[in-house]
Protein backbone atom coordinates (compact mmCIF):
# COMPACT_ATOMS: atom_id res chain seq x y z
CA UNK A 1 0.00 0.00 0.00
CA UNK A 2 1.18 3.53 -0.72
CA UNK A 3 0.78 6.49 1.61
CA UNK A 4 -1.62 8.11 -0.83
CA UNK A 5 -3.79 4.98 -0.86
CA UNK A 6 -3.59 4.82 2.92
CA UNK A 7 -4.82 8.39 3.37
CA UNK A 8 -7.68 7.79 0.93
CA UNK A 9 -8.60 4.65 2.87
CA UNK A 10 -8.44 6.57 6.19
CA UNK A 11 -10.77 9.24 4.85
CA UNK A 12 -13.23 6.62 3.53
CA UNK A 13 -13.23 4.78 6.87
CA UNK A 14 -13.72 8.05 8.76
CA UNK A 15 -16.68 8.93 6.55
CA UNK A 16 -18.14 5.47 7.08
CA UNK A 17 -18.20 6.02 10.86
CA UNK A 18 -19.76 9.47 10.64
CA UNK A 19 -16.87 11.84 9.93
CA UNK A 20 -17.12 12.88 6.28
CA UNK A 21 -14.39 14.98 4.69
CA UNK A 22 -14.33 18.59 5.87
CA UNK A 23 -15.85 21.02 3.35
CA UNK A 24 -12.70 23.10 3.79
CA UNK A 25 -9.66 20.87 3.20
CA UNK A 26 -7.39 20.74 6.21
CA UNK A 27 -4.17 22.70 5.85
CA UNK A 28 -2.69 20.65 8.66
CA UNK A 29 -3.49 17.12 7.53
CA UNK A 30 -1.17 17.00 4.53
CA UNK A 31 2.00 15.23 3.47
CA UNK A 32 4.94 17.05 5.05
CA UNK A 33 7.67 14.92 3.50
CA UNK A 34 8.32 11.90 1.35
CA UNK A 35 6.88 10.19 -1.71
CA UNK A 36 3.15 9.50 -1.35
CA UNK A 37 3.47 6.79 -3.99
CA UNK A 38 6.24 4.77 -2.31
CA UNK A 39 5.49 1.45 -0.62
CA UNK A 40 4.86 1.66 3.14
CA UNK A 41 7.17 -0.58 5.17
CA UNK A 42 5.64 0.26 8.52
CA UNK A 43 3.88 3.07 10.37
CA UNK A 44 4.38 4.83 13.67
CA UNK A 45 1.84 7.22 15.09
CA UNK A 46 3.23 9.78 17.55
CA UNK A 47 2.45 13.08 19.24
CA UNK A 48 5.28 15.06 17.67
CA UNK A 49 7.71 14.37 14.80
CA UNK A 50 10.79 15.08 16.85
CA UNK A 51 14.20 14.36 15.36
CA UNK A 52 14.52 11.57 17.91
CA UNK A 53 11.26 9.99 16.71
CA UNK A 54 12.63 10.04 13.16
CA UNK A 55 15.78 8.22 14.24
CA UNK A 56 13.85 5.57 16.13
CA UNK A 57 11.52 5.02 13.19
CA UNK A 58 14.46 4.48 10.86
CA UNK A 59 16.12 2.15 13.38
CA UNK A 60 12.90 0.11 13.46
CA UNK A 61 12.83 -0.11 9.68
CA UNK A 62 9.56 1.82 9.23
CA UNK A 63 9.26 4.57 6.68
CA UNK A 64 5.95 6.29 7.50
CA UNK A 65 5.16 8.51 10.44
CA UNK A 66 1.72 9.84 11.32
CA UNK A 67 2.25 12.62 13.88
CA UNK A 68 -0.39 14.72 15.53
CA UNK A 69 1.68 17.90 15.51
CA UNK A 70 3.84 19.77 13.05
CA UNK A 71 7.29 18.77 11.83
CA UNK A 72 9.01 22.11 11.22
CA UNK A 73 8.27 24.11 14.35
CA UNK A 74 5.16 25.95 13.22
CA UNK A 75 1.55 24.85 12.93
CA UNK A 76 1.39 25.54 9.21
CA UNK A 77 4.77 23.86 8.52
CA UNK A 78 5.69 26.74 6.24
CA UNK A 79 9.47 26.80 6.48
CA UNK A 80 10.44 30.03 4.74
CA UNK A 81 11.35 31.68 8.04
CA UNK A 82 13.96 28.97 8.65
CA UNK A 83 16.02 29.68 5.53
CA UNK A 84 19.35 27.89 5.88
CA UNK A 85 18.91 27.24 9.58
CA UNK A 86 21.26 24.30 10.31
CA UNK A 87 18.90 22.52 12.71
CA UNK A 88 16.10 22.62 10.17
CA UNK A 89 18.39 21.55 7.35
CA UNK A 90 19.78 18.62 9.37
CA UNK A 91 16.27 17.37 10.15
CA UNK A 92 15.14 17.81 6.56
CA UNK A 93 18.24 16.03 5.24
CA UNK A 94 17.68 13.10 7.60
CA UNK A 95 14.09 12.77 6.42
CA UNK A 96 15.16 12.86 2.77
CA UNK A 97 18.14 10.53 3.13
CA UNK A 98 16.00 7.93 4.82
CA UNK A 99 13.06 8.45 2.45
CA UNK A 100 10.68 8.99 5.35
CA UNK A 101 7.07 9.83 4.64
CA UNK A 102 5.22 12.10 7.06
CA UNK A 103 1.48 12.61 6.92
CA UNK A 104 0.02 14.67 9.74
CA UNK A 105 -3.23 13.61 11.32
CA UNK A 106 -4.46 16.47 13.46
CA UNK A 107 -7.80 17.81 12.32
CA UNK A 108 -9.31 14.45 11.34
CA UNK A 109 -8.41 12.88 14.68
CA UNK A 110 -10.12 15.79 16.44
CA UNK A 111 -13.17 15.66 14.14
CA UNK A 112 -13.79 11.98 14.82
CA UNK A 113 -16.60 11.23 17.27
CA UNK A 114 -15.51 10.63 19.82
CA UNK A 115 -12.49 12.88 19.32
CA UNK A 116 -9.61 10.38 19.27
CA UNK A 117 -7.29 12.57 21.33
CA UNK A 118 -9.80 13.21 24.09
CA UNK A 119 -10.78 9.54 24.06
CA UNK A 120 -7.13 8.58 24.45
CA UNK A 121 -6.50 11.08 27.23
CA UNK A 122 -9.57 9.94 29.17
CA UNK A 123 -8.30 6.39 28.83
CA UNK A 124 -4.86 7.45 30.08
CA UNK A 125 -6.44 9.24 33.03
CA UNK A 126 -8.81 6.33 33.72
CA UNK A 127 -11.90 8.55 33.61
CA UNK A 128 -15.31 8.44 31.96
CA UNK A 129 -16.87 11.65 30.66
CA UNK A 130 -20.07 12.75 32.38
CA UNK A 131 -23.06 11.92 30.16
CA UNK A 132 -24.08 15.30 28.77
CA UNK A 133 -26.32 15.73 25.75
CA UNK A 134 -25.09 17.07 23.42
CA UNK A 135 -21.62 16.00 24.50
CA UNK A 136 -19.30 18.99 24.94
CA UNK A 137 -16.13 18.95 22.87
CA UNK A 138 -14.04 19.07 26.03
CA UNK A 139 -15.17 16.35 28.43
CA UNK A 140 -16.39 17.11 31.95
CA UNK A 141 -15.62 14.48 34.56
CA UNK A 142 -17.15 14.20 38.01
CA UNK A 143 -14.45 12.47 40.03
CA UNK A 144 -15.39 9.18 41.69
CA UNK A 145 -14.76 10.94 44.98
CA UNK A 146 -13.67 14.50 45.82
CA UNK A 147 -9.97 14.99 46.33
CA UNK A 148 -7.55 17.82 46.98
CA UNK A 149 -5.83 19.52 44.07
CA UNK A 150 -2.57 18.10 45.39
CA UNK A 151 -3.97 14.54 45.37
CA UNK A 152 -5.47 15.07 41.93
CA UNK A 153 -2.09 16.27 40.67
CA UNK A 154 -0.36 13.20 42.09
CA UNK A 155 -2.99 11.02 40.40
CA UNK A 156 -2.76 12.73 36.99
CA UNK A 157 1.03 12.77 37.09
CA UNK A 158 1.17 9.09 37.98
CA UNK A 159 -1.25 8.21 35.15
CA UNK A 160 0.52 10.28 32.50
CA UNK A 161 4.08 10.07 33.85
CA UNK A 162 4.75 13.75 33.18
CA UNK A 163 7.66 15.32 35.03
CA UNK A 164 7.40 18.82 33.54
CA UNK A 165 3.82 19.49 34.63
CA UNK A 166 2.90 22.78 36.32
CA UNK A 167 0.01 23.46 38.64
CA UNK A 168 -1.66 26.64 39.83
CA UNK A 169 -4.16 26.90 42.68
CA UNK A 170 -4.41 26.06 46.36
CA UNK A 171 -3.06 22.49 46.78
CA UNK A 172 -5.60 21.92 49.54
CA UNK A 173 -8.69 22.98 47.59
CA UNK A 174 -11.26 20.25 47.05
CA UNK A 175 -11.90 19.14 43.48
CA UNK A 176 -15.16 17.43 42.60
CA UNK A 177 -15.52 18.14 38.92
CA UNK A 178 -12.85 18.67 36.26
CA UNK A 179 -12.72 19.72 32.61
CA UNK A 180 -10.23 17.84 30.46
CA UNK A 181 -8.09 19.45 27.78
CA UNK A 182 -5.56 18.07 25.31
CA UNK A 183 -2.69 19.90 23.64
CA UNK A 184 -3.62 23.52 23.10
CA UNK A 185 -7.33 22.63 23.09
CA UNK A 186 -7.84 24.05 26.54
CA UNK A 187 -11.21 24.27 28.30
CA UNK A 188 -12.28 27.88 28.83
CA UNK A 189 -12.84 28.23 32.54
CA UNK A 190 -15.37 31.10 32.33
CA UNK A 191 -17.67 28.91 30.20
CA UNK A 192 -17.69 26.17 32.83
CA UNK A 193 -18.83 27.83 36.04
CA UNK A 194 -19.32 24.62 38.00
CA UNK A 195 -15.96 22.95 37.42
CA UNK A 196 -13.30 23.14 40.10
CA UNK A 197 -10.23 22.35 38.04
CA UNK A 198 -8.88 21.86 34.54
CA UNK A 199 -6.58 18.97 33.72
CA UNK A 200 -5.16 20.06 30.37
CA UNK A 201 -2.11 20.39 28.19
CA UNK A 202 -0.73 23.84 27.55
CA UNK A 203 -2.22 27.32 27.50
CA UNK A 204 -0.60 30.71 26.96
CA UNK A 205 0.44 32.33 30.22
CA UNK A 206 -0.26 36.04 30.60
CA UNK A 207 -2.65 38.32 28.77
CA UNK A 208 -0.92 38.65 25.40
CA UNK A 209 -3.63 36.60 23.69
CA UNK A 210 -6.78 38.01 22.11
CA UNK A 211 -10.19 36.96 23.39
CA UNK A 212 -11.65 34.38 23.49
CA UNK A 213 -8.19 32.97 24.36
CA UNK A 214 -7.36 34.22 27.82
CA UNK A 215 -4.98 33.86 30.75
CA UNK A 216 -6.62 30.92 32.47
CA UNK A 217 -4.20 30.99 35.41
CA UNK A 218 -5.05 34.60 36.25
CA UNK A 219 -8.76 33.85 35.92
CA UNK A 220 -8.41 30.88 38.27
CA UNK A 221 -6.48 33.02 40.76
CA UNK A 222 -9.22 35.66 40.74
CA UNK A 223 -11.97 33.07 41.24
CA UNK A 224 -9.96 31.73 44.16
CA UNK A 225 -9.65 35.25 45.59
CA UNK A 226 -13.46 35.49 45.45
CA UNK A 227 -13.79 32.37 47.59
CA UNK A 228 -14.50 30.02 44.69
CA UNK A 229 -11.26 28.02 44.51
CA UNK A 230 -10.12 26.98 41.05
CA UNK A 231 -7.06 24.96 40.05
CA UNK A 232 -5.31 24.11 36.80
CA UNK A 233 -2.99 21.20 36.11
CA UNK A 234 -0.91 21.78 32.98
CA UNK A 235 0.35 18.37 31.89
CA UNK A 236 2.02 19.81 28.81
CA UNK A 237 1.30 19.24 25.15
CA UNK A 238 3.02 15.86 25.09
CA UNK A 239 1.49 14.99 28.45
CA UNK A 240 -1.89 15.07 26.73
CA UNK A 241 -1.50 14.46 22.98
CA UNK A 242 1.29 11.92 22.79
CA UNK A 243 -0.07 8.70 24.32
CA UNK A 244 -3.57 9.39 22.88
CA UNK A 245 -2.09 8.78 19.42
CA UNK A 246 -2.28 5.13 20.50
CA UNK A 247 -5.99 5.41 19.70
CA UNK A 248 -5.16 6.36 16.11
CA UNK A 249 -2.72 3.44 15.79
CA UNK A 250 -5.33 1.02 17.18
CA UNK A 251 -7.96 2.36 14.79
CA UNK A 252 -5.69 2.03 11.74
CA UNK A 253 -4.74 -1.54 12.61
CA UNK A 254 -8.42 -2.42 12.39
CA UNK A 255 -8.60 -1.79 8.64
CA UNK A 256 -5.05 -1.61 7.28
CA UNK A 257 -3.88 -5.14 6.54
CA UNK A 258 -0.32 -6.39 6.32
CA UNK A 259 1.50 -3.26 7.55
CA UNK A 260 2.98 -2.99 11.06
CA UNK A 261 1.36 -0.05 12.85
CA UNK A 262 2.30 1.06 16.35
CA UNK A 263 2.42 4.12 18.55
CA UNK A 264 5.90 5.55 19.16
CA UNK A 265 6.04 8.03 22.07
CA UNK A 266 7.67 11.38 21.36
CA UNK A 267 7.95 11.96 25.10
CA UNK A 268 8.17 15.22 26.96
CA UNK A 269 10.59 17.69 25.44
CA UNK A 270 11.63 19.08 28.80
CA UNK A 271 14.38 17.69 31.00
CA UNK A 272 13.44 16.14 34.31
CA UNK A 273 13.45 18.93 36.94
CA UNK A 274 16.64 19.30 38.93
CA UNK A 275 16.75 18.66 42.64
CA UNK A 276 14.98 21.52 44.39
CA UNK A 277 12.53 21.95 41.51
CA UNK A 278 10.83 18.55 41.72
CA UNK A 279 8.40 19.11 44.58
CA UNK A 280 7.53 22.75 44.94
CA UNK A 281 4.26 22.82 46.81
CA UNK A 282 3.67 26.37 47.97
CA UNK A 283 4.15 27.09 51.64
CA UNK A 284 1.20 28.76 53.27
CA UNK A 285 2.12 32.26 54.32
CA UNK A 286 0.72 33.81 57.45
Amino acid at each position, binding site marked *: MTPRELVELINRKAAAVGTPPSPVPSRRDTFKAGDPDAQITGIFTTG*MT*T*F*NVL*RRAVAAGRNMIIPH*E*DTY*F*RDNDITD*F*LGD*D*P*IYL*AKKAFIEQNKLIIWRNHDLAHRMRPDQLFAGQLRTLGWTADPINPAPRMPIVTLPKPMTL*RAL*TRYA*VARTGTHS*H*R*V*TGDPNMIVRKVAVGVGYAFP*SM*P*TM*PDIDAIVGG*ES*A*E*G*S*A*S*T*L*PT*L*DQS*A*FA*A*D*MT*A*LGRPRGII*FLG*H*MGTEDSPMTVVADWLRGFVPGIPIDFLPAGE*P*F*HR*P*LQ*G*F*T*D*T*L*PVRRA
Partner: protein
Amino acid sequence: MTRSLKFSRRNFCLSGGQALAITGLAGPALAQRRQARAPIAQTIVSALSELADAELISGRPEAAVTGVALLSNPTLAALRKAVAAHCSLILSPETPFYAHPADPAAASAPFAAMAASAISALHESPAFKAKQAFIADHGLTVYRLNPRANSGRDISAEATAARFGWTAHRVPGEHPIYAPPGMSVGTLIGLAHARLGASGGLRFIGDPAMRLRSILIVPGTAEVVSTTQALRHADALLTGDVREWEVVTYINDSAEAGLPKALVATGRILSEQPLVERCALAVRNAFPGVPLRNLVEPDPFWRVQA
Protein backbone atom coordinates in the same frame (compact mmCIF):
# COMPACT_ATOMS: atom_id res chain seq x y z
CA MET B 1 17.58 28.15 48.41
CA THR B 2 16.16 31.54 49.22
CA ARG B 3 15.39 34.35 46.85
CA SER B 4 17.80 37.21 46.83
CA LEU B 5 16.07 39.82 44.78
CA LYS B 6 17.80 43.14 44.73
CA PHE B 7 14.54 44.91 45.33
CA SER B 8 12.10 42.80 47.24
CA ARG B 9 8.68 43.97 48.27
CA ARG B 10 10.08 44.64 51.71
CA ASN B 11 13.10 46.73 50.88
CA PHE B 12 12.01 48.47 47.73
CA CYS B 13 8.49 49.73 48.06
CA LEU B 14 9.11 51.39 51.38
CA SER B 15 12.38 53.05 50.49
CA GLY B 16 13.01 56.76 50.39
CA GLY B 17 10.85 57.61 53.36
CA GLN B 18 7.74 56.52 51.51
CA ALA B 19 6.74 54.05 54.18
CA LEU B 20 5.23 56.82 56.19
CA ALA B 21 3.39 58.13 53.20
CA ILE B 22 1.80 54.76 52.66
CA THR B 23 1.18 53.46 56.11
CA GLY B 24 0.98 56.47 58.35
CA LEU B 25 -1.40 58.77 56.57
CA ALA B 26 -5.09 58.27 56.42
CA GLY B 27 -8.26 60.24 56.66
CA PRO B 28 -10.14 62.34 54.14
CA ALA B 29 -8.44 65.66 54.96
CA LEU B 30 -5.01 64.30 54.41
CA ALA B 31 -6.07 62.47 51.28
CA GLN B 32 -7.52 65.67 49.86
CA ARG B 33 -4.35 67.58 50.65
CA ARG B 34 -2.26 64.91 48.97
CA GLN B 35 -4.50 64.83 45.94
CA ALA B 36 -4.33 68.60 45.56
CA ARG B 37 -0.60 68.43 44.84
CA ALA B 38 -0.51 64.95 43.35
CA PRO B 39 0.51 64.45 39.73
CA ILE B 40 -2.06 63.00 37.37
CA ALA B 41 -1.81 59.49 35.91
CA GLN B 42 -0.88 60.69 32.44
CA THR B 43 2.04 62.71 33.79
CA ILE B 44 3.40 59.71 35.63
CA VAL B 45 3.20 57.29 32.70
CA SER B 46 4.87 59.86 30.48
CA ALA B 47 7.98 59.31 32.61
CA LEU B 48 8.05 55.76 31.25
CA SER B 49 7.93 56.71 27.58
CA GLU B 50 11.46 55.48 26.89
CA LEU B 51 10.77 52.16 28.56
CA ALA B 52 7.27 51.19 27.54
CA ASP B 53 4.15 52.22 25.68
CA ALA B 54 1.50 52.80 28.34
CA GLU B 55 -1.89 51.56 27.12
CA LEU B 56 -4.89 52.84 29.07
CA ILE B 57 -7.06 49.92 30.21
CA SER B 58 -9.36 51.53 32.80
CA GLY B 59 -9.88 54.83 34.54
CA ARG B 60 -8.96 58.40 33.69
CA PRO B 61 -5.55 59.68 32.56
CA GLU B 62 -6.26 62.98 34.30
CA ALA B 63 -7.01 61.37 37.67
CA ALA B 64 -4.85 62.60 40.56
CA VAL B 65 -2.58 59.81 41.77
CA THR B 66 -2.44 58.96 45.47
CA GLY B 67 0.13 56.23 44.93
CA VAL B 68 1.52 54.03 42.18
CA ALA B 69 1.47 50.23 42.22
CA LEU B 70 3.69 48.31 39.82
CA LEU B 71 2.26 44.81 39.47
CA SER B 72 3.79 41.95 37.51
CA ASN B 73 0.40 40.24 37.55
CA PRO B 74 -2.69 42.39 38.20
CA THR B 75 -4.78 39.73 39.90
CA LEU B 76 -7.64 40.70 42.18
CA ALA B 77 -5.45 39.85 45.16
CA ALA B 78 -2.70 42.16 43.89
CA LEU B 79 -5.20 44.97 43.21
CA ARG B 80 -6.49 44.61 46.76
CA LYS B 81 -2.96 44.96 48.11
CA ALA B 82 -2.44 48.05 45.95
CA VAL B 83 -5.62 49.65 47.26
CA ALA B 84 -4.72 48.76 50.82
CA ALA B 85 -1.52 50.72 50.22
CA HIS B 86 -3.60 53.70 48.96
CA CYS B 87 -2.39 53.35 45.37
CA SER B 88 -4.69 54.64 42.67
CA LEU B 89 -2.51 54.12 39.59
CA ILE B 90 -1.86 50.53 38.52
CA LEU B 91 0.92 49.77 36.05
CA SER B 92 1.58 46.26 34.75
CA PRO B 93 2.81 44.45 31.63
CA GLU B 94 -0.45 42.48 31.84
CA THR B 95 -4.06 43.61 31.71
CA PRO B 96 -6.34 42.71 34.63
CA PHE B 97 -8.88 41.48 32.06
CA TYR B 98 -6.96 38.35 30.97
CA ALA B 99 -6.42 39.16 27.25
CA HIS B 100 -6.63 41.78 24.55
CA PRO B 101 -10.24 42.56 23.63
CA ALA B 102 -11.68 40.52 20.78
CA ASP B 103 -10.88 41.67 17.29
CA PRO B 104 -14.16 42.87 15.71
CA ALA B 105 -12.96 41.52 12.35
CA ALA B 106 -13.03 38.03 13.85
CA ALA B 107 -16.82 38.19 14.08
CA SER B 108 -17.09 36.66 10.62
CA ALA B 109 -14.43 34.00 11.20
CA PRO B 110 -15.22 30.30 11.53
CA PHE B 111 -16.45 29.42 15.01
CA ALA B 112 -17.34 33.11 15.57
CA ALA B 113 -20.51 32.15 17.42
CA MET B 114 -18.57 29.86 19.75
CA ALA B 115 -16.02 32.63 20.36
CA ALA B 116 -18.76 35.17 21.06
CA SER B 117 -20.34 32.81 23.54
CA ALA B 118 -17.01 32.28 25.33
CA ILE B 119 -16.39 36.03 25.49
CA SER B 120 -19.89 36.61 26.81
CA ALA B 121 -19.30 33.97 29.49
CA LEU B 122 -16.13 35.77 30.53
CA HIS B 123 -17.85 39.13 30.74
CA GLU B 124 -20.61 37.60 32.85
CA SER B 125 -18.19 35.70 35.09
CA PRO B 126 -17.86 36.57 38.79
CA ALA B 127 -14.13 37.21 38.37
CA PHE B 128 -14.48 39.67 35.49
CA LYS B 129 -17.39 41.52 37.10
CA ALA B 130 -15.74 41.69 40.50
CA LYS B 131 -12.54 43.05 39.01
CA GLN B 132 -14.34 45.61 36.91
CA ALA B 133 -16.35 46.74 39.95
CA PHE B 134 -13.28 46.80 42.19
CA ILE B 135 -11.38 49.01 39.74
CA ALA B 136 -14.37 51.36 39.34
CA ASP B 137 -15.29 51.48 43.04
CA HIS B 138 -11.76 52.43 44.04
CA GLY B 139 -11.27 54.89 41.22
CA LEU B 140 -8.23 53.06 39.91
CA THR B 141 -6.50 54.06 36.71
CA VAL B 142 -4.90 51.05 35.03
CA TYR B 143 -2.29 51.08 32.28
CA ARG B 144 -0.73 48.14 30.52
CA LEU B 145 3.00 48.58 29.90
CA ASN B 146 4.08 47.29 26.51
CA PRO B 147 7.89 47.25 26.66
CA ARG B 148 9.87 49.07 24.00
CA ALA B 149 11.70 46.81 21.61
CA ASN B 150 13.11 48.48 18.55
CA SER B 151 16.30 49.67 16.91
CA GLY B 152 18.29 46.85 18.47
CA ARG B 153 17.14 47.72 21.97
CA ASP B 154 14.88 45.48 23.98
CA ILE B 155 14.18 47.24 27.27
CA SER B 156 12.75 44.19 28.98
CA ALA B 157 15.69 42.00 27.96
CA GLU B 158 18.14 44.69 29.11
CA ALA B 159 16.38 44.87 32.47
CA THR B 160 16.66 41.09 32.79
CA ALA B 161 20.35 41.18 31.90
CA ALA B 162 20.89 43.85 34.54
CA ARG B 163 19.08 41.72 37.13
CA PHE B 164 21.40 38.82 36.25
CA GLY B 165 24.50 41.04 36.35
CA TRP B 166 25.22 40.58 32.65
CA THR B 167 25.00 44.13 31.31
CA ALA B 168 28.72 44.29 30.57
CA HIS B 169 28.57 41.00 28.67
CA ARG B 170 26.24 42.07 25.86
CA VAL B 171 27.25 40.57 22.51
CA PRO B 172 27.28 43.28 19.83
CA GLY B 173 24.48 42.90 17.33
CA GLU B 174 20.79 43.34 16.90
CA HIS B 175 19.69 40.58 19.29
CA PRO B 176 19.72 40.74 23.11
CA ILE B 177 22.40 38.06 23.46
CA TYR B 178 24.77 37.97 26.43
CA ALA B 179 27.99 36.05 27.05
CA PRO B 180 28.54 35.89 30.81
CA PRO B 181 31.57 33.77 31.73
CA GLY B 182 31.39 30.34 33.36
CA MET B 183 27.79 29.62 32.49
CA SER B 184 26.19 26.18 32.16
CA VAL B 185 22.59 25.07 31.92
CA GLY B 186 22.71 24.19 35.61
CA THR B 187 24.10 27.55 36.70
CA LEU B 188 21.57 29.37 34.52
CA ILE B 189 18.77 27.47 36.23
CA GLY B 190 20.24 28.42 39.62
CA LEU B 191 20.37 32.06 38.57
CA ALA B 192 16.78 31.96 37.28
CA HIS B 193 15.77 30.77 40.72
CA ALA B 194 17.89 33.28 42.62
CA ARG B 195 17.15 36.33 40.46
CA LEU B 196 13.59 35.72 39.30
CA GLY B 197 12.23 33.35 41.93
CA ALA B 198 11.57 30.62 39.35
CA SER B 199 10.60 27.38 41.05
CA GLY B 200 7.64 25.13 40.22
CA GLY B 201 7.04 26.80 36.87
CA LEU B 202 10.60 26.42 35.57
CA ARG B 203 11.10 24.07 32.63
CA PHE B 204 14.29 23.48 30.73
CA ILE B 205 15.94 21.57 27.89
CA GLY B 206 19.61 20.62 27.78
CA ASP B 207 22.20 18.70 29.72
CA PRO B 208 22.66 20.54 33.04
CA ALA B 209 26.44 20.33 32.54
CA MET B 210 26.28 21.85 29.05
CA ARG B 211 28.52 24.93 28.78
CA LEU B 212 26.81 28.05 27.50
CA ARG B 213 28.85 30.65 25.69
CA SER B 214 25.92 32.91 24.86
CA ILE B 215 22.33 33.36 26.03
CA LEU B 216 19.45 35.00 24.17
CA ILE B 217 16.97 36.75 26.47
CA VAL B 218 13.33 36.92 25.40
CA PRO B 219 11.16 38.05 28.32
CA GLY B 220 7.44 37.38 28.07
CA THR B 221 6.48 34.84 25.43
CA ALA B 222 9.02 33.58 22.87
CA GLU B 223 7.45 33.91 19.43
CA VAL B 224 8.72 31.23 17.06
CA VAL B 225 9.93 33.17 14.02
CA SER B 226 11.92 35.95 15.67
CA THR B 227 13.20 33.67 18.44
CA THR B 228 14.52 30.87 16.23
CA GLN B 229 16.19 33.41 13.96
CA ALA B 230 17.94 35.10 16.89
CA LEU B 231 18.75 31.77 18.53
CA ARG B 232 20.96 30.82 15.60
CA HIS B 233 23.47 33.18 17.18
CA ALA B 234 23.24 31.87 20.77
CA ASP B 235 23.63 28.64 22.73
CA ALA B 236 20.59 29.09 24.95
CA LEU B 237 17.27 30.83 25.29
CA LEU B 238 16.20 32.37 28.59
CA THR B 239 12.54 33.22 28.31
CA GLY B 240 9.16 33.21 30.00
CA ASP B 241 6.48 31.28 28.14
CA VAL B 242 6.92 28.94 25.17
CA ARG B 243 4.70 26.90 22.86
CA GLU B 244 5.59 23.22 22.77
CA TRP B 245 5.03 22.71 19.05
CA GLU B 246 7.17 25.73 18.12
CA VAL B 247 10.31 27.00 19.87
CA VAL B 248 10.36 24.02 22.22
CA THR B 249 10.49 21.45 19.41
CA TYR B 250 13.15 23.46 17.60
CA ILE B 251 15.36 23.41 20.70
CA ASN B 252 14.48 19.82 21.47
CA ASP B 253 15.67 18.84 17.98
CA SER B 254 18.92 20.77 18.25
CA ALA B 255 20.90 18.07 20.08
CA GLU B 256 19.86 15.39 17.55
CA ALA B 257 20.98 17.78 14.80
CA GLY B 258 24.42 17.94 16.41
CA LEU B 259 23.99 21.60 17.36
CA PRO B 260 22.74 21.45 20.94
CA LYS B 261 20.94 24.47 22.32
CA ALA B 262 19.38 24.92 25.72
CA LEU B 263 16.16 26.42 27.00
CA VAL B 264 15.31 27.83 30.40
CA ALA B 265 11.68 28.96 30.59
CA THR B 266 10.71 30.61 33.87
CA GLY B 267 7.10 31.44 33.09
CA ARG B 268 5.92 34.72 31.62
CA ILE B 269 4.97 36.59 34.76
CA LEU B 270 8.33 36.03 36.45
CA SER B 271 10.21 36.91 33.28
CA GLU B 272 8.58 40.35 33.21
CA GLN B 273 9.52 41.32 36.76
CA PRO B 274 12.83 43.00 35.81
CA LEU B 275 10.90 45.27 33.44
CA VAL B 276 8.42 46.05 36.19
CA GLU B 277 11.26 46.88 38.54
CA ARG B 278 12.91 49.13 35.98
CA CYS B 279 9.65 51.00 35.46
CA ALA B 280 9.26 51.32 39.23
CA LEU B 281 12.72 52.86 39.49
CA ALA B 282 11.89 55.31 36.71
CA VAL B 283 8.70 56.40 38.49
CA ARG B 284 10.53 56.73 41.79
CA ASN B 285 13.27 58.83 40.23
CA ALA B 286 10.84 61.10 38.40
CA PHE B 287 8.33 61.44 41.23
CA PRO B 288 10.18 60.89 44.50
CA GLY B 289 7.26 62.24 46.52
CA VAL B 290 4.69 59.82 45.15
CA PRO B 291 4.15 56.67 47.21
CA LEU B 292 5.15 53.60 45.25
CA ARG B 293 4.69 49.87 45.58
CA ASN B 294 6.39 47.25 43.48
CA LEU B 295 4.55 44.04 44.28
CA VAL B 296 6.82 41.11 43.52
CA GLU B 297 4.85 37.93 43.01
CA PRO B 298 6.16 34.45 43.78
CA ASP B 299 6.16 31.76 41.09
CA PRO B 300 2.46 31.10 40.42
CA PHE B 301 3.14 27.43 39.59
CA TRP B 302 4.05 24.39 41.63
CA ARG B 303 4.56 20.72 40.89
CA VAL B 304 4.79 17.42 42.68
CA GLN B 305 7.53 14.83 42.34
CA ALA B 306 6.82 12.62 39.33
